[in-house]
């Protein structure tokens, strides 16, 4: 892809393996993210929650595992809520269609009479 561009600048190379440390103690920022996700998790049904004590999560790896679980749960929760609301809409639409077909069948004789 890069060959098609006339003006290029190289990224700096560095020792990514030396820079990587998933055992690094979590920063205040990630601690906050954990607290916020923990709060969000309480909006899920009790059986859907992770029941993980976030006070025991001390490293970036531990935090990321929890963050992944809750993020996935929240997405699942959203999909389920969407399905539920779509289901409600379908049910409501079916009911409305039934009602209108009943009305139509009831009104048919009237229409015939009008004719």
């Amino acid at each position, binding site marked *: 892809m890069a060959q098609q561009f006339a003006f*290029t600048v190289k*990224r*700096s190379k560095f020792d990514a393996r030396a820079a*990587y440390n998933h055992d690094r103690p979590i920063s205040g920022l*990630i601690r*906050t993210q954990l607290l916020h996700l923990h709060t969000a998790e309480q909006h899920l049904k009790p059986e859907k929650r992770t029941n993980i004590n976030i006070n025991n999560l001390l490293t970036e790896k531990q935090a*990321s595992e929890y963050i992944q679980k809750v993020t996935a749960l*929240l997405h699942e929760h*959203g999909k389920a809520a969407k399905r539920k609301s779509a289901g409600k809409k379908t049910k409501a639409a079916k009911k409305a269609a039934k009602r209108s077909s009943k009305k139509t069948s009831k009104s048919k004789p009237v229409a015939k009479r009008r004719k």
Partner: protein
Amino acid sequence: MPQGLDNLKHVVVLMMENRSFDHMLGGLKRTNPKINGLNGDESNPDTAGNIVKVQPTASYQGQLSHDPDHHFPGTDLQIFGGAPFDPGRVANMQGFIKSYATQNSNVNASHAIMNYFAPEKLPILTTLATEYAVFNGWFSSIPGPTVCNRAFAHYGTSFGNVDMNLFYVTDADRDKIPTIYERMKAGGHGAKLYYYDQPSSTMEIVNLLKDQSFFGTLADFIADCNSGKLPEYSFVEPNYSDHPGPGGGQLLATDQHPDHHVLAGDNFIADVYNAIRGNSDLWKSTALLVVYDEHGGLYDHVVPPSCTPDGYKAAPAATGVPGLEFKFDRLGIRVPAILISPYIARGTVIPGTEDPDSQRIFEHASIPATVTKQFLPGNNQGTAREKQAETFLDLLGDEMRGDDDCVFFQ
């Protein structure tokens, strides 16, 4: 209307973490005096009374292993040099070392807060700053930490908060002031927050709970760029942690939050830029803003200016500064911000407070203000602060730079 604005279909914002303007871009003044960076003689006193000058000796990792204080009281100390609250006190940007010294037993280690990067050490960020438009006057919205500052990018307000609390889940005001994503959706437009991956997730938890359809991953962002399916507004978040990748790999944090490796973030900026640059239709119809959420406790020499209050107040108990009720009438410390588009002339510098006659002051409320102005004209849902905020798309001009004239990163 300039052709650049006429052709504009997408706005993309990449918000990085915790670095000040001078720390990242201050060294550019050497090559372009219009950039309001460092002369080299800026200084702060340390706790032993020594005067410590700025030095181009910032390191990518290891120098800031104690996360520098950037909460409201710490930032207050940095701006006012440690003077106790008094309505008449004057900001002097002299308290950075004093603040970092509270976290270091070693006086010499506290000097690291004055270090900045030589431009050649950050090839991606400094190339973008010199190739496109750099803002001399883009400030964080609050002299405080991440969450309240990022809230200004999403809502145009932090609902009266100056800290890291998850304040707006149950706040009745939250529904009165919808996010820019909600506003865009209601207006029939696309808007998405792209977080790096699920183990890193997002800092915008409220919407993750409320409407997951706003979210995608970085892989989705790249795919959307490649397929031309990018929504009108995108907000990209970096990777906030070192964590294992799929298949046993190692993924480095790319947010540049101390003490994550700064080059991992520099290369991440290149990834986001290249994703747009690599699709010629997208490139000519997109404006990319690279900006940092707040200064992270790192030195900057520019005194934050006053701003339009947004109607909220934070009591002294909330600010943590005795006697100081914060009326949201002053901005936070200056951060790097770069606007990128082929319709921007090389070497554009948008003047800040150093040029009172033509200064333009931006802050994170400028983001929803700009997106609203561009895609939702007439929408009146922002706060007074957002409505007063400068917008930045007028910087796109008439002439599109040729393909050979716009950089690609290898």
